[in-house]
């Protein structure tokens, strides 16, 4: 109803405030209709309102006007996903565990989301995922995003202006973006502004260097070791520890050379360990902690040595003593401090992965009985999952071919990041044939879920179904496998849908 319509507006205000007058002006009745007063003023007003409403609505005609010009989106570049697959995507937004896999599969099958689903995707899919899989969204996404200000993706360059003059939060955001695109240039920005940064600014910005760390960052990190803010120093130490070729690493190794010496006689290695007498300023600057924390079961001096060992890439030992990892570990076990140092070695290997060392340590941990099962299981899982995918898989396959305690199996399932078909089959067979399920030795739901989300579906389903057919109804093994089945089934269905034409 057009508000420029004076009689209607008058009627509205009359009724809103309440009727005071006993009669209403005749002009409120529509033209051409003679007034029909009712038994009371309210009746009359309502009749007039109805008459006017009817004549206005029945007679209302929209005005012709300019026809807007709108661009068309580019046509789809790839085949479309079928409606069932798009419906499933809708159910998984914004953060179901299988969402990343859906996107990866869609990309692999070279499919695109149909345009009528795009508004929901643009609204609900996290921006990081949108930027990671632009082809799945298709070329129409940019066209649609341009029409709605709420969906503007910042495809612009990180702006130096905001860096120079924005608030701390804005500057952090710009820095993160640039560090994604061009890490060296981001570091240069920070180096230039470093002298003028406030302590709080330094504390917030420096940790952002952790992304895309490289050897070129070393000089800056080295200088940051002397910074007055503790956050900066801690982050600098943490970053330098990840750079095995840095001067930092060499300093630590130099300290170790003096403390651990060994000689090779007739193909066997004997190690002599000397504990450090004190931690000098330089070592403290490098992050060696002086005060032993509660719960660490070794003397102060042994603790300092163990920190040094934990920082050193294992390659150092192989090169220095020209021996295989097993030889070194045997020799280490024979010394007085062998046990504590083995744990430090595990930490070192997790930080600087090496397939031979990982394997040697895992095998030792499997046979070992000293620490609790839980601790050993965690260490094994950490060693396996810190390796790059192919090496991780071959080590996992080797371990799974042996009879394993359930707790170790559980940790491996939880931490494993990639699973080859062979590894998947071995894991399921291990779950099926294990005998020792009890209160302390168990497979957790979380471990099973992680495995089900990442394992190889095509290899898993036949083995899983065969295993379920064999097992008795109330065995714990059946319980484990039944938890896996729905997730595998859903993933297989997802795959199938994405292979169907839209």
């Amino acid at each position, binding site marked *: 109803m057009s508000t420029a319509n004076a009689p209607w507006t008058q009627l509205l205000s009359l009724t809103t405030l309440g009727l005071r007058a006993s009669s209403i002006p005749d002009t409120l009745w529509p033209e051409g209709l003679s007034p029909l007063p009712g038994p009371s003023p309210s009746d009359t007003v*309502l009749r007039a309102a*109805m008459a006017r409403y*009817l004549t206005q609505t029945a007679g209302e005609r929209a005005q012709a006007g300019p026809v807007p010009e709108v661009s068309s989106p580019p046509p789809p570049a790839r085949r479309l996903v079928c409606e069932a697959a798009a419906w*499933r995507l*809708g159910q998984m937004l914004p953060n179901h565990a299988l969402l990343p896999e859906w996107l990866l599969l869609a990309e692999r099958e070279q499919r695109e989301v149909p345009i009528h689903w795009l*508004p929901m995707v643009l609204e609900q899919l996290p921006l990081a995922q949108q930027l990671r899989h632009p082809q799945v969204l298709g070329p129409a996404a940019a066209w649609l995003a341009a029409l709605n200000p709420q969906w503007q993706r910042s495809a612009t360059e990180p702006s130096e202006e905001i860096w120079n003059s924005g608030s701390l939060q804005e500057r952090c955001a710009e820095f993160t973006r640039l560090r994604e695109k061009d890490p060296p240039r981001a570091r240069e920005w920070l180096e230039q502004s470093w002298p003028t940064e406030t302590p709080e600014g330094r504390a917030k910005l420096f940790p952002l260097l952790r992304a895309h760390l490289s050897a070129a960052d070393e000089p800056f990190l080295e200088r940051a070791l002397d910074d007055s803010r503790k956050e900066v120093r801690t982050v600098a130490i943490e970053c330098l520890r990840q750079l095995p070729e840095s001067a930092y690493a060499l300093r630590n190794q130099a300290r170790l050379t003096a403390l651990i010496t060994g000689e090779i006689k007739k193909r066997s290695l004997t190690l002599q360990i000397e504990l450090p007498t004190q931690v000098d300023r330089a070592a403290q600057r490098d992050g060696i902690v002086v005060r032993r924390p509660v719960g660490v079961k070794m003397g102060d001096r042994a603790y300092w040595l163990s920190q040094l060992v934990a920082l050193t890439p294992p390659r150092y030992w192989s090169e220095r003593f020209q021996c295989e990892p097993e030889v070194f570990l045997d020799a280490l076990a024979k010394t007085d401090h062998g046990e504590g140092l083995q744990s430090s070695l595990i930490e070192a290997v997790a930080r600087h992965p090496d397939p031979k060392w990982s394997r040697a340590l895992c095998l030792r941990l499997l046979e070992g009985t000293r620490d609790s099962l839980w601790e050993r299981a965690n260490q094994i899982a950490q060693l396996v999952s810190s390796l790059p995918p192919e090496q991780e898989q071959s080590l996992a396959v080797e371990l799974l071919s042996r009879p394993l305690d359930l707790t170790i199996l559980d940790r491996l399932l939880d931490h494993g990041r990639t699973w080859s078909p062979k590894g998947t089959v071995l894991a399921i067979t291990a779950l099926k044939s294990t005998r020792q399920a009890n209160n302390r030795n168990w497979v957790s739901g979380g471990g099973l879920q992680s495995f089900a989300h990442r394992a190889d579906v095509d290899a898993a389903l036949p083995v899983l179904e065969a295993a379920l057919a064999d097992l008795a109804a109330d065995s714990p093994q059946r319980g484990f496998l039944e938890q896996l089945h729905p997730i595998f089934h859903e993933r297989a269905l997802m795959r199938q849908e994405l292979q169907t034409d839209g």
Partner: protein
Amino acid sequence: MSDWNSQRVEQLAPDPSALKAAQGVAKLTKWRTVGREDQLLWGECLGSGSSPYQVRIDLTDAASKCSCPSRKLPCKHALGLLLLLVNGAKIPGTQAPAFASEWHAARTQRAASRAAKQAAPETPPDPELQARRMAKRESRIEEGLALLDTNLRDLLDQGLATVRGKDEPFWSGLSARLTDCQAPGLARRVRQLADAANAPDWQEQLLIGFARLRLLIDAYRRLPHLPPALAAEVRTLVGWTQPQETLLTREGLRGHWQVLSCRQTQEDHLKVQRTWLSCKQEWALILDFAVGNQPLPRSFFPGQVLDAEVVYFEGVPPCRALVKQLHASLSPQARLPAAIDILTAQSRFGALLAINPWLERIPVVLGPVFPRMQEGRCQLVDAAGRVAQTPHRFRHGWPLVALAQGGLLEIFGEWDGQSFEPMAAAAGGRLYNLVQLRDMPVLAKVA
């Protein structure tokens, strides 16, 4: 079959826990037998009982029956079997076993016998008793009208601003008293007024609502002077129902009826399903009701084409209808009926208002129109640059803009004289239904 998809199955589920349970059952390992013969789907599900549960489903209209003791309909076994179908499990096409074919036969026979029973003459009820009952009801309704008279005068004297501030017990109290006076139509109007008080344009909505109520009361008091069709409409609006048995004895309109939308809303404990059908230039609205957890008798989906005989309730214009006989379900049709432009829609609404002043909305296929977003609201612009607004609560604006791809769409929806509410859209030779997925507005391709 391409008609059935996971979205339809989800809509059938009485609540989310039933759907979850159904997903657990939707594995072939849990079913001893499954099979399908044409539109009849059946299976035997291994449950916790000693013998498997027998499930039968009629795929035409989503009716199901299961031998499990669950009180929910459709139960998780029926939903699970549908999920199996939808997810592409291999269901052999074999001859139906006894339990399935008997159920199907019994259903068709019930429908046929019901139709036959209507055709056969039945003993008329005692006319004197009937006349007394009707007179009693008329006097009760007159009491209700008098109650409304007083209330309307009071409320108008206080002013709409004060009315807006009235709390919930006032409205529900008034509505309950009208229901007691056997005028449920008036009671429903009062409840709608309570909702109108919360709308952004409450002043207009309240004024129009009161004006319509006033006219209805006046019209009811002058029933003998009105033309018969309009009189029947007024009686229906006040709350007199037309008995379905008499309706089914009449000759209906048989044809290929295309389903254009099927929407469910919840009013308190009542589930209401509104299905729009169209055949050539005729429109029919099917209303289905279910109380509490009861299932709706049948559900269709947009694009489905039914070879059916449809009978109309009395009204002006004839709108509400019943499906007297469903002969077959044909292959879905993706094209909408002939579209009209905004000007034609407005003049059609105006012409119909002249014969029924209480008319609130009409079914319209609008097109070709071009959707655009203006300050967060969706508008539809036709080739002459005329603009139709969508209601405030309409959320599918961006999906329509995306679907149009800068071009034109044909859209089916309801026109209420001021705004147009889209329900289904056609583009590129396909039909899309406007639905909700987990609370998000999406378009689902249906044909």
